[in-house]
């Protein structure tokens, strides 16, 4: 049963306006005020052109670097090095990366992964570590 008091206070135009405001606030919250995960990664190496990979599609990439090949795995919005021609393997030990603004790199092999999002306003501008 509807509240007769409310029915008498709000006109149809008021109700439409409230509905519109609610939708607008939800839209702004989703697209501008929420922290969103990275959407794609930019892969750079000295022997290949820079390219993007979608983080929502599980995939494995072989990237030719200064020393040899680095293997990059993508799954469920995350990316990591799983193999690399470097000796220390610090790139592999750094684990998964999923935040906008994060950068992972194999320094000896000169292969880098930069995470980014289509909603750059909600991301980190840089990651400190």
């Amino acid at each position, binding site marked *: 049963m509807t509240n007769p008091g409310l029915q008498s206070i709000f006109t149809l135009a008021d109700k439409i306006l409230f509905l519109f405001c609610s939708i607008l606030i939800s839209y702004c919250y989703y697209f501008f005020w929420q922290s969103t995960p990275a959407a794609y990664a930019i892969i750079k190496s000295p022997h290949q052109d820079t390219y993007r990979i979608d983080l929502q599609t599980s995939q494995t990439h072989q990237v030719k670097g200064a020393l040899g090949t680095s293997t990059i795995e993508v799954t469920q919005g995350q990316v990591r090095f799983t193999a690399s021609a470097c000796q220390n393997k610090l790139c592999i030990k750094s684990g998964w990366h999923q935040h906008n603004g994060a950068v992972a790199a194999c320094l000896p092999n000169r292969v880098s992964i930069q995470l980014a999002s289509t909603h750059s306003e909600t991301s*980190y501008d840089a990651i400190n570590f």
Partner: protein
Amino acid sequence: MTKRFSLAQRLNLVIALCSLLYLSACSKPVTEFHETVFTMGTLVEVTIVGEDELLAEQAYIAILDDFNYMHNTWHPWQRNALQRINSLLQTGAPFSLAPSILPLIEKSQVLSEQSQGLFNPAIGQLIKLWGFHQDNLDDVFGPPEDSEIQTFLKTLPRMSDIKIKNLSMSGTNTNIQLDFGGFAKGVAVDATIEHLQEFGIKNAIINAGGDLRAIGQHGDRPWRIGIRDPRMDDVIASVDIKGDESVFTSGDYERFFETDGKRYHHIIDPRTGYPANKTRSVTVIHSNAATADAAATALFIAGPEQWQEIARSMGIKYVMLIADNGDIHMNPAMAERIQFVTEQKNIMLSQTL
């Protein structure tokens, strides 16, 4: 009684609606120039926003030259000007000032004294003894003999052992070997930010392997910096930067080797000769990148018991220290600025610095 909204009330609703639209408009993307380059032994990210693309490109190319020059001149274990200075300091004889190294020596002498010797770039021999003077730490098969460390500590070199007089300098300790390590990165970040400013650039970040200085802001909002958890593959907290500030972190996860299941990292305590073992990471915010860099190292070594004393003597106002047991120590000013991604229950607030 039937009551309907008056015209004024409806107008208020429309104004509120317009305000929301205005807020959305504030978040419009700004022009952003973003490049990464391998230099200074790390990956350097340069972000410039709100500037003409050609100007940003020109400024970027200019600072690449700066980075390459500083990398080649200050590298701790390659044949370069620093190696020559190290050889001459060990002779004890006076020699002509080296303009390419002098600013680092003078600045680090001040910072070393303020840190009560915990930041000590004169212990290059000890760093080398631990095997950290090489890119590949897989060739390090274990820590040095304790007797070697104790022998070195008997004549521990300090930055004050370098005497500068008129146009010459000399060393008074034959064990001096300068290794500016990460400090060179801080100085390089300062120099390149200043170079960007000379180009008229007002909004930029230079992030050298996770340590950064940010000027201006990103469009209508402050720069948003994520701070990585020292033990997890994730961001632990974030901090907003507006104006001109540096965020530097020293951690035990950056350079290390493992022997018999034990990890030995690269931040050596000059008092013991061994890696400092009471801290996982220290994050410092300061206007000057070189100072932030030196302070992060000194406070890491100082550990949970002494960090406040050293922070005060170095003039540091924002510190977060994650201790070896996972406790998060910070001063109230830092606590006001930092936003944790998840709730942290083990926060230990210090007195005001």
